């Protein structure tokens, strides 16, 4: 809820309360301000606004307990992978990202944000890591800090569900940081399902997967059999 008080210099206050989920009030505020300027030509109008926490969200900063956020966005990510047992290279051949974000305000941007975050997550899962030497980054160039190219990732299939958050703008919750979280776990789980390996670290580079598969008994048998 946004409470706004508009004060003029002495003729009394123009006070309006605006709820963020009610755009009609936003229009009413604009109307009121325009009317005030027509009634007071050439005079300045000052405004002050403060965020008011929605009711029912309790957070105790002393004990660090309670509801840190008013709402959470949710996601379910599915990765389909192919592992080449000769090279232990993993290829993501399909990816589905479903998000529940309250309200999609701009479909093109929302979908783009998810696709971009998923591809960053694929990079994190399979190829991106900082390599250090004497406290400095040894692979600090685009030639040796590797991010996915267009040929390294599938089309990312995106779906949105909407369960509007009453205290969010238009019902929206957050979306920006969400898509980086799920891809790596989904991919590592898929590789585990495909190979029986038990990866616990990312990036799951081919070198690391080879080590894991060599440790597992049946990994050696798979390596010997026909591809």
């Amino acid at each position, binding site marked *: 809820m946004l409470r706004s008080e508009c004060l003029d210099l002495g003729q009394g206050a123009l006070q309006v309360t605006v709820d963020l989920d009610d755009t009609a009030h936003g229009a009413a505020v604009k109307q009121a301000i325009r009317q005030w300027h027509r009634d007071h030509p050439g005079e300045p109008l000052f405004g002050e606004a403060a965020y008011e926490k929605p009711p029912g969200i309790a957070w105790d900063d002393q004990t660090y307990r309670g509801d840190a956020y008013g709402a959470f966005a949710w996601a379910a990510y599915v990765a389909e992978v192919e592992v080449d047992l000769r090279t232990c290279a993993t290829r993501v051949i*399909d990816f589905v990202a*479903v998000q529940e974000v309250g309200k999609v305000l701009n479909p093109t941007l929302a979908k783009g944000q998810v696709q971009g975050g998923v591809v960053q997550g694929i990079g994190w899962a399979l190829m991106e890591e900082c390599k250090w030497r004497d406290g400095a980054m040894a692979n600090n160039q685009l030639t040796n800090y590797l991010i996915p190219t267009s040929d*390294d990732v599938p089309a990312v299939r995106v779906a949105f569900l909407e369960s509007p958050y009453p205290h969010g703008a238009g019902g929206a919750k957050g979306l920006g940081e969400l898509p980086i979280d799920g891809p790596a776990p989904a991919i590592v789980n898929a590789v585990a399902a495909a190979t029986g390996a038990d990866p616990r670290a990312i990036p799951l580079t081919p070198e690391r997967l080879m080590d894991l598969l060599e440790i597992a008994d049946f990994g050696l048998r798979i390596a010997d059999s026909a591809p």
Partner: protein
Amino acid sequence: MSGHSAIRNPQSAISIAFTLNGEPVSLGVDPAARLLDTLRYQLALTGTKEGCGEGECGACTVYLDGLPVNSCLVPTYQVRGRRVETVEFLDPGALEPFERCGATQCGACTPGVVMAAWWIREHPDLLGTHSIRELMAGNLCRCTGYDGIIDSVEEALGERGKGKGEG
């Protein structure tokens, strides 16, 4: 970074003439000037971007005799007598699919992306041997995850991809 094309030693400057965006151009360049530097700092064509300076990201893509190249890796003296086109040469109206399909977010990769994408659109026969993703793999993007870019190339090619649907 050899980020500027100032002629360090006038005696070593090389006179070159070439065709730039359809117009003849003559100028003196330093032997160490990269085409990227000359375009941006000598000719004030700042549409071409330096993303990495090592031919990895493609943000500096221009056409040299009709082929897409990384201008960060072209010594300017090598374009003498040849034809160069930059992103400024593209028809802005033709870029509508890129806006509509979410091909651009922060914009850092966009000049190089549209140069590569437009070139693919002008050479559809390549799709007989190459996928769009392979042809675009020299243009790194961090924001879009490439889907918006691939979609816009398909739009520009006048066909919708038969890929899996999206929500």
